[in-house]
């Protein structure tokens, strides 16, 4: 079967089947917003959502993570056990899946492989959910993505109203499709409807700039006086970095109690003044101007130089959550329009 159909009446049974096979991490409603969490029951899955408050990068790169435990006496080091459960990441939006694919070259760099990230990353089959309701802050089409992009996914589902169109992308996805219950062969009209819907959604997302344009314009923008004006509104709170699906900076700290403890890593951000501060007092990025520039340039320029692609997927979380309404689209367009 190339493409399948799961009717919504069977959704619960399908998710229950996935839960039998392994851990299912999916969007769940928490208070007023949606977050990714391990599903306690099939009903908890919330597939009728725009996007999660926090990106699902935390499933692979948690906000806080133990690197090892130690005991000073006897100089003992204990690696945390691998408690990662194999299973499925269900309902991830294409923008976020692309973001995780962008993190892979950082943590899976051949010389220095990050075992903790890779254990988590390999443990989950990625089941995406095509975007049918882009928000006003979405701009994936400007960063090289699309509402039904398949990068980083093993399988893509598309909501067609009363049913999901199920498209396997990788061998892992095809294997899963063969195993899933209640899957019917997709009819020609389903495929036609899906492609029609895809076009309609894409039409709602006209590109503001292209990834190449942003990259090349920003290549020459380092010394631009515009940074001086742009940064002034920024508080340096780093909310943008914490909600960003591709931001991957972290800090390492020791937590100690009576000669025992653990070394942990925690999300950090280049927007903080302490991020680059030397003990001597020298700070290579002394001001908000340099820090904001670093974040924007890293996403749209440096990352592409290092890894071949820009590191913004257009999810729009930084725009939505910024307390002072900074808009990365405006910042990049300001340079693109010159």
């Amino acid at each position, binding site marked *: 079967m190339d493409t399948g159909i799961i009717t919504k009446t069977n959704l619960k049974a399908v998710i229950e089947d996935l839960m039998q096979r392994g851990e299912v991490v999916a969007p769940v409603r928490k208070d007023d917003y949606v977050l990714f969490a391990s599903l306690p029951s099939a009903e908890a899955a919330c597939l009728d959502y725009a996007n999660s408050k926090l990106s699902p990068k935390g499933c692979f790169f948690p906000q806080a993570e133990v690197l*090892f435990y130690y005991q000073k006496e006897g100089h003992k080091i*204990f690696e945390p056990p691998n408690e990662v459960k194999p299973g499925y990441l269900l309902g991830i939006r294409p923008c976020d899946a692309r973001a995780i694919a962008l993190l892979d070259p950082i943590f899976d760099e051949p010389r220095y492989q990050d*075992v903790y990230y890779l254990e988590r990353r390999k443990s989950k089959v990625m089941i995406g959910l095509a975007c049918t309701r882009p928000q006003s802050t979405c701009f994936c089409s400007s960063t090289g993505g699309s509402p039904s992009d398949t990068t980083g996914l093993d399988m893509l589902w598309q909501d067609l109203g009363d049913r999901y169109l199920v498209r396997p992308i990788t061998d892992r996805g095809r294997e899963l499709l063969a195993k899933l219950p209640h899957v019917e062969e997709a009819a020609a009209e389903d495929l036609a409807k899906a492609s029609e819907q895809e076009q309609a959604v894409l039409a709602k997302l006209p590109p503001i700039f292209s990834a190449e344009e942003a990259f090349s314009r920003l290549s020459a923008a380092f010394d631009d006086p515009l940074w001086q004006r742009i940064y002034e509104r920024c508080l340096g709170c780093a909310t943008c970095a914490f909600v960003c699906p591709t931001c991957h900076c972290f800090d390492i700290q020791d937590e100690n109690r009576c000669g025992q403890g653990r070394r942990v890593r925690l999300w950090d951000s*280049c927007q903080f003044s302490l991020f680059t501060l030397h003990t001597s007092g020298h700070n290579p990025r002394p001001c908000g101007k340099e820090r904001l520039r670093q974040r924007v340039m890293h996403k749209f320029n440096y990352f592409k130089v290092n890894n071949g692609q820009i590191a913004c997927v257009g999810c729009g979380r930084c725009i939505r959550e910024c307390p002072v309404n900074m808009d990365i689209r405006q910042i990049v367009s300001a340079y693109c329009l010159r």
Partner: protein
Amino acid sequence: MNHPYSYADDREEKLITTEGAEREEENIFLPKPARVLQAQPMGRTEKYFRLAFSDGSSMGHQPGQIVEASLFGYGEIPLGIASSPTREGYFDLLIRKAGRVSTALWNLEIGDTMYIRGPLGKGFPVDEFKGHDVLIVAGGIGLCPTRSMIEYIEDRREEFGHFTLFFGARTPKDQLFPNDLARWREEIDWIEYHETVDQGSPEWKGNVGVITTLFAKTSISKGCRVIICGPPIMYKFVIKELKKLGIPDAHIYVDLERRMKCGVGKCGHCQINGLYVCTDGPVFNYARIKNLEEAF
């Protein structure tokens, strides 16, 4: 419902564990214990350590590479290796008492254990220096990482041309490695050593002035390969002098320092634009980074 991938919910119980799970894959975050063989205060706030890995393994580094040194309960800091790989069985570090971690490390004594990850980063490209005259310009604690190259040149003297070392310290009391300095002043067959201090003292008979004043004391050949390591302010003035001598940018290597956490090109702290000082450096060819404003 708690976020399943945060440890916030089991914070109290899992702060401590004595159960480990060893992995087959190499874990880049695990340090190796190293025993302090020698420890000696130097300068005003520095202390010299000679260490050896407890498991008997050798560092196997290039001159100029770095390590992440740590003490459990305090944290981890990046340090330049101060000894040459040609001298086996130990490695040297110099620690300046400055912050929380460095002060805790400074307090270690002979027989204590320090934890080391490394060697990390790219050191001096030794092959680029072979067959050429070499000038090393070291300011203050910048003598520490360059000492790995100085010792390397001493041990493989025949591979290099004329070797000149400039060392500048704030005051005579701030001079590091006094035994080495005494030797370098007297031994003239392999090293041409010039030193200066910013501020002299009644006992000081040598040069007083910034490090660039040493360029007037000797002549540097145009084909010379240069290493610079020192406080951020020093680089631009030394490079200006080198320009006057007609030394091309590609023959100048700068050894930079940055705040670092992971040391393996992931955590983002040490980035200069798109470059990671921990994996692309800490030694950079000047031609490659001269246009990066945040580098100096």
